[in-house]
Each structure stands twice: as C-alpha cells, then as structure tokens.
C-alpha cells in the first residue's frame, strides 16, 4: 500500500536511483566471475588430464608439459568405447523421434479434440508424474524380462517413451493455436492426418525442437534404466560404460578421456542452443 502511494514521487527522484543502478557493481561482478570459474573448473581439469601425454604424471602434481591426443585416439580405436557410443546414439535418437511423434499426436488430441474419457486419461497421465521412476523400477524390469526384452534395444527404449511431460508440453502449446485454423482446414475437406502433418507439425516446430533437445539430453545422460537393461558389455551405453570403467579402476587419463568424449555432444548441443535452452526452462520449467 505504501508503495503505490509513494509511486508518483518516484519520477522526481528517479535519475539518482537509475544512475546508482548503472554504476558498475564491481564486488558482485567479481563474485559472480569467481563462482562461474569454479563451476567450470572440473570440466577444465578433466580435459587437461584427458589431453595429457600417456604415462606422464599430471594434475594435481604438475601441469602437463605438452598436450597430446594419444589417449583419445587409443580410446576411439577400442571397440568397447565406440560400441557404447553407438548404443547411446541409438537410444537417444530413436527415443527423440518416437516421443516427438507420439507426444505431439496425443497433445493435439488432448488440446483440440473431444472424445470419451479424454479428461480421465489426461488426469491419469499427469498423475504418473507423482510416482518416482525408481519406485517402479523392479516391476518394470520384471515386465521387460518376461517379454524377453532384457539386453535388447527395444527393452531399453520402449519403456522410456511414456513421457507425461512431453505430452503436456505439446498439449499446452497446441491448445494456444487458434481453433479457426483447424475448423477452416476441416471445412476445406482436409483429413485428420493431413491436418496433423500440415498444420500441427509445422506450427509446433519451436516446441518440438526444444522438447527434442531435452529428450536427447535425458536419454544421453540416463543411467539407472540402461544399467539394469544392459546385462552384456555390448549393450552398455556411455554412462553405464563410464561407471564400469570407474569401478574397474581404469587409468585416470583413460577415464578422463572417456568422460570428456562422452560429454562432447552435450557441450555441443549446449553451445549451439544455450539461449534457447535457458529461455525454455525459464518459461516452462521443463525438466
């Protein structure tokens, strides 16, 4: 109340307030810079160790005298690491494609269609968000092993496709598209499939891209499910392989080189789409 009452007075005293805001907050800037550098430093030392010449004692004892790609080249010529990478790429990309397709279809129906049981269904989808994945880990594992899916790609991928967040994000976005668009297309005699492919998909491209990036990162970084699904070394994803290298005591340089290589796609996605990712989290709280 007091605030609104004094507001007219603000304009008179505004200039000093503004200039105070404009003056450079040195201590805050330094603090922020320090925290940022500390946050990034683990990546930095990881890359330094990964690029140290093999056999040379390195951090924290001393900085490597020169950098070398030897460890990374060796790693890329070992079938294990390459196989894990291929598995991870398949796991992430196939999941992205199917989730984008099924979630946009469901989102369209929930947003713009009427059919029996729609609201119950939507409520039931949303309710599953409250159940942590780990609480259903055991029955999920039993189900997949009964269906013969342990140690297979479909067993790894298919159970992760039922994604409530994806459906709801699509629904919210499609709901805000004008109804007239769909009515007009229908009057013109377009089939539902045509409306989906030629109106829904093109108009939801921005949200599909955002969702695609997040699903990619979720799957690329996923651990517990691939861990229980990959019984053989051949089915391991990068996270599972990396964890096994750690527990089996691989040399530090090899471990750091694997870690560095496995994070490169994430860093690339991040570098290209930083602003985009940041804005979408700020707007939607997507996780």
């Amino acid at each position, binding site marked *: 109340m007091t605030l609104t009452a004094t507001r007219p007075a603000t304009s008179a005293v505004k200039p000093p307030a503004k200039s105070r805001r404009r003056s450079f907050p040195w201590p805050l800037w330094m603090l922020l810079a320090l925290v940022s550098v500390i946050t990034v430093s683990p990546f930095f030392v990881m890359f330094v160790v990964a690029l140290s010449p093999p056999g040379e004692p390195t951090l924290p004892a001393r900085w490597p005298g020169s950098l070398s790609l030897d460890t990374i080249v060796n790693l890329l010529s070992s079938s294990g690491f390459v196989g894990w990478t291929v598995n991870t790429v398949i796991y992430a990309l196939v999941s992205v494609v199917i989730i984008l397709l099924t979630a946009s279809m469901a989102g369209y129906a929930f947003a713009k269609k009427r059919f029996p049981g729609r609201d119950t269904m939507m409520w039931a989808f949303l309710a599953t968000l409250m159940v942590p994945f780990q609480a259903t880990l055991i029955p999920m594992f039993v189900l997949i092993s009964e269906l013969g899916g342990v140690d297979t790609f479909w067993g790894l991928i298919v159970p992760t496709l039922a994604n409530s967040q994806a459906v709801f994000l699509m629904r919210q976005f499609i709901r805000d598209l004008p109804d007239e668009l769909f009515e007009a297309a229908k009057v013109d005699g377009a089939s539902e499939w045509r409306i989906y492919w030629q109106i829904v998909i093109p108009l939801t491209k921005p949200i599909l891209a955002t969702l695609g990036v997040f699903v990619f990162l979720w799957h690329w970084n*996923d651990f517990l499910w691939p861990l229980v699904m990959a019984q053989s070394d051949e089915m391991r994803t990068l996270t599972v392989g990396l964890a096994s290298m750690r527990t089996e005591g691989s040399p530090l340089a090899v471990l750091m080189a694997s870690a560095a290589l496995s994070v490169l796609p994430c860093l690339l996605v991040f570098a290209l789409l930083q602003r985009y990712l940041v804005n979408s989290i700020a707007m939607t709280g997507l*996780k």
Partner: protein
Amino acid sequence: MRQRMRDPMMGLLFVLPMLVLFLIFRFVPILGAGGMSLTDLNLGGEWNFIGVDNYARLFDDPKFWDSLRITLVYVAIYVPLTVLIALGTALLLNAVVFMRGLFRGMLFLPYVTSFVLAGVIWRWIYEFDGMINGLLDKLDLGPVGFLEETALVLPALAVVSVWKGFGYSMLILLAGLKSIPTSYLEAATVDGAGPWQRFRRITLPLLRPALFFVVIIETIGAFQTFDTIYVMTGGGPARASYTLIYGLYDQGFRFSNLGYAATIGIVLFALVLVVSLAQRRLLDRGNA
C-alpha cells in the same frame, strides 16, 4: 464445435500410441509395484503371496531405518545448499549486466551433463591424490578423506549434485526475479529501504512461488539420488551413503530379492508423496 464433435473416435486414435505406452509401461508397473511388494518374488521367477511380510521385515530391519536416516540427512544437506546457491547466483546474475550471458552459461553448463560424469570427475577431485588434496598439500594441510570419512561423505556427495544441478533452479529463480517490477524496488529505495529490507520485504515474498517450485523439485530429486552414489562410494564407507534407493538397487539386482526391493520402492513413493504434500501445506500457509 459441431465439427469437432463429428468424429469422436479420431481423437482417441491420436492418443492411442501414447495411451498404449502408458498403459503397459507406466500403469502396469505402478500397479505391479504394489502387488509385487506383497510377494517374495526373486530373480529365479518364483513367487508366493506373503501379505505384508515384506513391510514387517523392512520395518524390523535396523539397516532400513539407517538408510532412511541417511536419505533424510542427505536431503537435509542437499536441498538448502542447492536452493541457497541457486538463489545466490540468480541474485548475482540479476544484479550484474556486464558479461551476464557468459556467466549464466558457465553456471548452467554442468546441468547438461550426466550425474555419472559428475561422479567420475568429482571422485577424482576428492581422492587422496586428487585435485583438492593436491592443493591442500601445497598449503601443507593434511589430506582429507572426503569419501572415506563417514561424516564427510554425505556433504561431499551433496556438493557433487549441487554442482551438477543448481543451474536449473537458478534459471527458474532468475525468471522469477525478472518478473518482479523494478518500480517496486525503486519505490522502496525512495522510501529509504536498504538492500536487505528490499530483499526481505519485496523480492522474497514475490519470489515465493518460484522458490516453492524449486524446493519441491529439488527435494524429490534428492530422494532419488543414485548415479553419483553408485559411481563414487558404492554406499560406503561403512554404509554411510547407503540411501533407500541404493538399497532398492542392491536388493533387487545384487541379492535378487525383487519383492523386497519393490517394497522399498513403495516406501520411497510414499515418502516423496508425503514430503511434497507437507511442503505444499507449509509453504501455502507461510504465504498467507
């Protein structure tokens, strides 16, 4: 409206793929978890209905109460730490203009990586011949066994998760801060309010919804911490980081007690539910 009513089955057809996925891979396992917790299912596939024996056994097991206590201690360390750091960095980002984009990117960077990667890097940072002890050594300070001391292991693990994940909460809080009209803060300045009073009386109340959201999701996330523990400590030392979820994995996949592991899953679910409902109530009341 009439157009949309014409073909009610089309809508169903579009939901069908996702519905099938949800029915088989969400609803069946959720119901299955409850059912399985009432059996003595093992990895051999044999099972008998044993009623609530698993629950009785769990509540009788001092190791269960230990792991529950460890989980709660971990949550109690992790949540305030991550929310404070997220809030602090969000406030800094909001106050600083020069190079803001770069700093925001640097702080958010670990979020796009995996907990396994965080665990692998930080395990080495914490080791006796790792980064921190290397630096301590140069200062002639004794080595610290971050992952070897029972008192240090939970804070050490919490720091890793904070590093990996605070950027997400930071962005949510930053968006909340940006939505506060600057005219409020300017008016308060004119009225003679200092920085602390402005924060306490204007920023904090208006930020409450964002803070509430962040506290809830970070708490739920903390209950589910697994990857870093698996990679860094294996539940040790002396079971000091043996959380509920780690016990669930161990019982299910190392000892193949699937029924018993499912019971731990149900307890975890109940816990997450109770905590989020309690937080909702508490924070709603605080708002009034």
